[in-house]
């Protein structure tokens, strides 16, 4: 799950004193009174889960009351790459001497969390890495040890960070890594980490992602956003399967991510367009299958449904039970093609034959073709 800037900062503030927390509001008048309280100029920032806010006009400086109210009204309701702005973060403008970049994120090729730091912050880090790689530190972190401080100090100095700031930056990085591990974060990015004219180091912006699989031990983080709306994807997750919405019209239900992806590919090869990715997961029970089918059928664009199950840890009879229940409760709105094989598939086929009129095939490509053909009628 991704956090908005202010939510990430709230998490950081548990460990750091130098976070520009500010005020979160949806009320332009509150922006003005907060500005009067802390003193102008102030920075007003759109709070959305997408990068590139500045370029889109979602981050502005206000020097007085009139500007504050006008800018707040402009930004609220703004659409930034499909994300509607509903909240603003207001904080005191700081005099910036230098902008640095710091992130800790998972690097697949090293199979480890990796620190990235650069004295060229506030900009696109990939561009810096491309143009002046010597200014970007990339340091994989051994998960069985702490960050190696001596090595980090050397790297920071080598990248051009002035020695008088090294101690504090090391402290920030070390605490950040501990936070990343303690809170199950898959990404923490501070860009910029700012050096002010008063020589203070401040966390001015942050991006934070928490690992969805760690929800069981990070419930505080997952409850941070009370307004979190439940999307189709999240509804699916709460019902025990994984769902991704796509643009086509052939509904897909399968077990195992790889098989579902291959099912999508097969539908595409047969000339159709998948309406979704839906993996009922391993060991799915009849109830899960039932909910999955309903979710897919509930998508008005869907013209036919292809159920592709290869029994392993998932048992064919359980899947068949779920399908038979849904079909017998209410006749399906669209044609359903079933392909069932593997563990207990014979029992499953028996259930489908005895209790439904649905047709079953055991060859994937054929099933994909009939799903596409039936969807086109």
């Amino acid at each position: 799950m991704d956090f908005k800037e202010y939510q990430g900062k709230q998490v950081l503030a548990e460990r750091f004193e130098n976070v520009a927390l500010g005020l979160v509001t949806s009320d332009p008048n509150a922006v003005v009174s907060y500005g009067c309280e802390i003193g102008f100029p102030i920075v007003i920032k759109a709070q959305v889960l997408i990068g590139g806010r500045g370029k889109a006009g979602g981050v502005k400086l206000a020097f007085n009351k009139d500007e504050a109210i006008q800018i707040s009204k402009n930004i609220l309701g703004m659409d930034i790459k499909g994300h509607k702005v509903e909240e603003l973060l207001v904080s005191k403008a700081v005099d910036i001497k230098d902008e640095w970049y710091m992130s800790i994120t998972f690097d697949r090729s090293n199979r480890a969390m990796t620190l990235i730091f650069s004295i060229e912050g506030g900009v696109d880090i990939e561009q810096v890495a491309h143009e002046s790689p010597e200014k970007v530190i990339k340091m994989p972190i051994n998960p069985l040890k702490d960050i190696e401080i001596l090595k980090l100090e050397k790297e920071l100095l080598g990248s051009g960070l002035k020695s008088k700031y090294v101690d504090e930056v090391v402290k920030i990085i070390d605490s950040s890594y501990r936070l990343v591990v303690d809170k199950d974060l898959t990404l923490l990015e501070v860009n910029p980490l700012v050096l002010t004219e008063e020589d203070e180091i401040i966390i001015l912006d942050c991006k934070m992602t928490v690992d969805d699989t760690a929800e069981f031990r990070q419930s505080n983080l997952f409850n941070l956003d009370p307004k979190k709306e439940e999307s189709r994807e999240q509804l699916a997750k709460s019902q025990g399967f994984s769902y991704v919405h796509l643009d086509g019209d052939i509904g897909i239900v399968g077990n195992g991510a790889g098989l579902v992806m291959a099912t999508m590919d097969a539908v595409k090869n047969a000339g159709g367009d998948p309406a979704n990715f839906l993996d009922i997961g391993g060991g799915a029970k009849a109830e899960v299958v039932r909910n999955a089918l309903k979710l897919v059928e509930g998508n008005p664009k869907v013209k036919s449904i292809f159920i592709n199950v290869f029994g392993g840890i998932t048992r064919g009879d359980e899947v068949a039970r779920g399908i038979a229940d849904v079909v017998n409760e209410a006749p399906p709105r669209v044609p359903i093609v079933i392909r069932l094989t593997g563990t207990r598939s014979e029992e499953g086929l028996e259930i489908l034959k005895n209790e439904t009129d649905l047709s079953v095939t055991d060859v994937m490509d054929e099933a994909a073709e009939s799903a596409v053909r039936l969807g086109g009628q």
Partner: protein
Amino acid sequence: MSIWLKRNTKVIVQGMTGREGTFHTKNMISYGTKVVAGVTPGKENTTHLDLPVFGNCSDAVQETGSKSSVIFVPARFCLAAVKDAVDAGVKFLVVISEGIPLHDEIKIGALVRKNNVTMVGPNCPGIFSVGEASMGIMPESIFKKGNIGLVSRSGTLTYELVDLISRAGLGISTAVGIGGDRVIGARFIETLKAFDEDEETSAIAMVGEIGGSDEEEAAEIIPSLKRLSKKIVGFIGGRTAPPGKAMGHAGAIVEGNKGTPQSKVEALENAGILVPEKLSEIPGILKGFID
């Protein structure tokens, strides 16, 4: 013959007393796998499926002499289970559990690498040596004995392909489901090398998917394989998946320009490997290798 898991491999099952553990241990035993003990903390000194249950792996290893373990415990206990196994001296691990937090997976990966443990998984269907033994959840009914090695990032896609291969009159030596998570133990590289050293494996099918760079890295070492560099057929699942969306497997996500199906297909083709668009074309290609 086979890789890693043999007829005489003594197997410990961590989490044997749970629902999934019980179901699949029964299947493993009925296939002939030498399951020697279960491990469930708190259930030491009991028996389950007529086998002794220990509270930790050290005791199980000491009593049975086994160096191989398959893990069925819930995701949240997985890191502890792997630590337990590694500390006990287990050298071959199969981790079936899915939904393990990233930071636990990173630690698990580092632990097994540091201790030279071969780990299959996590979040995988396990390993199946046809006619010999099974560690995991693959359904035996689809397998026929033969000389094709199969390695796959996806569980059900493994079954799919095994089924196609069996129907085509071919058979499998060992099938390895390496798992689709962000951090896995044995990758394509290690598995391909193991097949290359198994004299009775004479062709390999490798099933990759979008995300990560394991296929690209494998493509780099394939030309250096001693026997089978020209006897490999590849497949990439998820060619139609949109970028930026995790397709169920934590690892199956196209991030920026990394992990795209195009780069994988291209890397494999450059290494001289055929990568058909349809899974159903694979048995025909394998037949060509064997004849």
